[in-house]
């Protein structure tokens, strides 16, 4: 690892000015990705801008129709937040399978989104929840829907001069729920082989609205639009769920890598989609 100039601004505006004047500067949040990436030579940095002391990045606030999570909130802080417990318990279940306690004490939600690795967890569920991210730069602020933010593996639409400041998650209708299913090779500190996030607005077992998002089976989360459309206005019987899972499997575009073959990942999507939907409507029979 090479030396760098270290900046630690105390205000967002100062950070924005630094980003404008130091092209190629690296933002440092929890550091759990950046230190590994620097060590592996995947990235280099002459200037590192620490976000540690910028207070507005660390808050979780309730608004009329949404919850705003500061991009600098650690995963552990999100798990401890009463607002998240009340409105988005599904994010707690993502936290459980995200990483080790040590990493969760450092890794931030904004970092997980901006790292944009193909097997990341939070971008998948946040896409299903129709979250938006806010990007700040010296020139101004803009909002981007979560589904448009990742462009490819480790690539997002964030410009070099921009800082991701908050994640806005719209409150769900009363009968809506979401669920995240992640398949990993072991139960602790393990990356996704494949994952599925499902959002459902239900009227009993009848589906008013659905979204199905797939993780780790493409360079960035896949919105399985056809699979979700099949569920719309239908009673979610095991057979309907099976048909939707089959469409989800067809929407996956996985590769073979160290964790699994492409074929295995496609099968996982078929099973995980059914597992999520069945759990959400209360079927517990065998998946075939």
């Amino acid at each position: 690892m090479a030396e760098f100039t270290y900046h630690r601004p105390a205000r967002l505006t100062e950070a924005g000015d630094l980003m404008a004047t130091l092209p190629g500067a690296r933002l440092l949040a929890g550091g759990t990705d950046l230190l590994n990436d620097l060590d592996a030579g995947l990235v280099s940095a002459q200037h590192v801008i620490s976000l540690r002391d910028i207070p507005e990045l660390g808050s979780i606030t309730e608004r009329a129709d949404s919850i705003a999570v500061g991009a600098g909130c650690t995963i552990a802080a999100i798990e401890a937040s009463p607002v998240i417990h009340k409105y988005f318990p599904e994010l707690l279940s993502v936290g459980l399978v995200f990483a080790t306690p040590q990493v969760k004490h450092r890794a931030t939600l904004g970092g997980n989104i901006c790292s944009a690795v193909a097997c990341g967890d939070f971008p998948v569920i946040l896409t299903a929840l129709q979250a938006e991210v806010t990007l700040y730069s010296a020139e101004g602020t803009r909002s981007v829907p979560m589904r448009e933010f990742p462009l490819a593996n480790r690539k997002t639409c964030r410009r070099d001069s921009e800082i991701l400041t908050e994640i806005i998650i719209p409150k769900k209708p009363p009968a809506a729920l979401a669920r995240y299913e992640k398949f990993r090779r072991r139960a602790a500190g393990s990356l996704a082989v494949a994952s599925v996030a499902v959002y459902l607005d239900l009227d009993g077992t009848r589906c008013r609205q659905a979204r199905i998002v797939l993780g780790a089976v493409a360079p960035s989360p896949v919105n399985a639009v056809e699979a979700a459309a099949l569920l719309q206005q239908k009673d979610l019987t095991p057979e309907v769920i099976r048909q939707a899972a089959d469409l989800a499997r067809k929407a996956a575009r996985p590769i073979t890598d160290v964790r699994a073959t492409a074929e295995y990942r496609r099968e996982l999507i078929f099973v995980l989609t059914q597992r999520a939907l069945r759990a959400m409507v209360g079927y517990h029979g065998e998946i075939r």
Partner: protein
Amino acid sequence: MLSVSNTDYFDLELTVNGTPVRRRIPTHLRLLDFLREELGLTGTKEVCGEGECGACTVLLDGLTVDACLIFAVETHGMEITTIEGLSRNGNLTPLQQAFIDHHSVQCGFCIPGMILSGEQMLRDHEQLTREEIRQDLSGNICRCTGYQKIVDAIESVSRDRR
């Protein structure tokens, strides 16, 4: 602007095991290397160096973290506890004694990290089930013991203070 370094060094001030420390360090120095090389606190171990194994676990403002994944400069003004900072006047903590009593140590390399994770969970929870202990130990890998006696030791301290 609160803080900016020159390219090659940073004047770091923090508290380590209750003692204020001030050192001029290179910006890219990891907390792990700062503790081991600059302060000689070699109880904090390096194994994987990428945040998988937890051998370098320390408490940063009371929270377990992997010292291999933090730049020392980021801990400016903060408080660190390493394995060397737990005993007082030669008296082990109840958890350290429990690791001895339950024969929880084989090669010992993972044990400082195990104990710091254990200390944090005992502090955060009045009572701990074996399942909770296993969950909270999920960031610490041991290749010798099979974990049973480590879980036994933490469970015994949780039980004894009921």
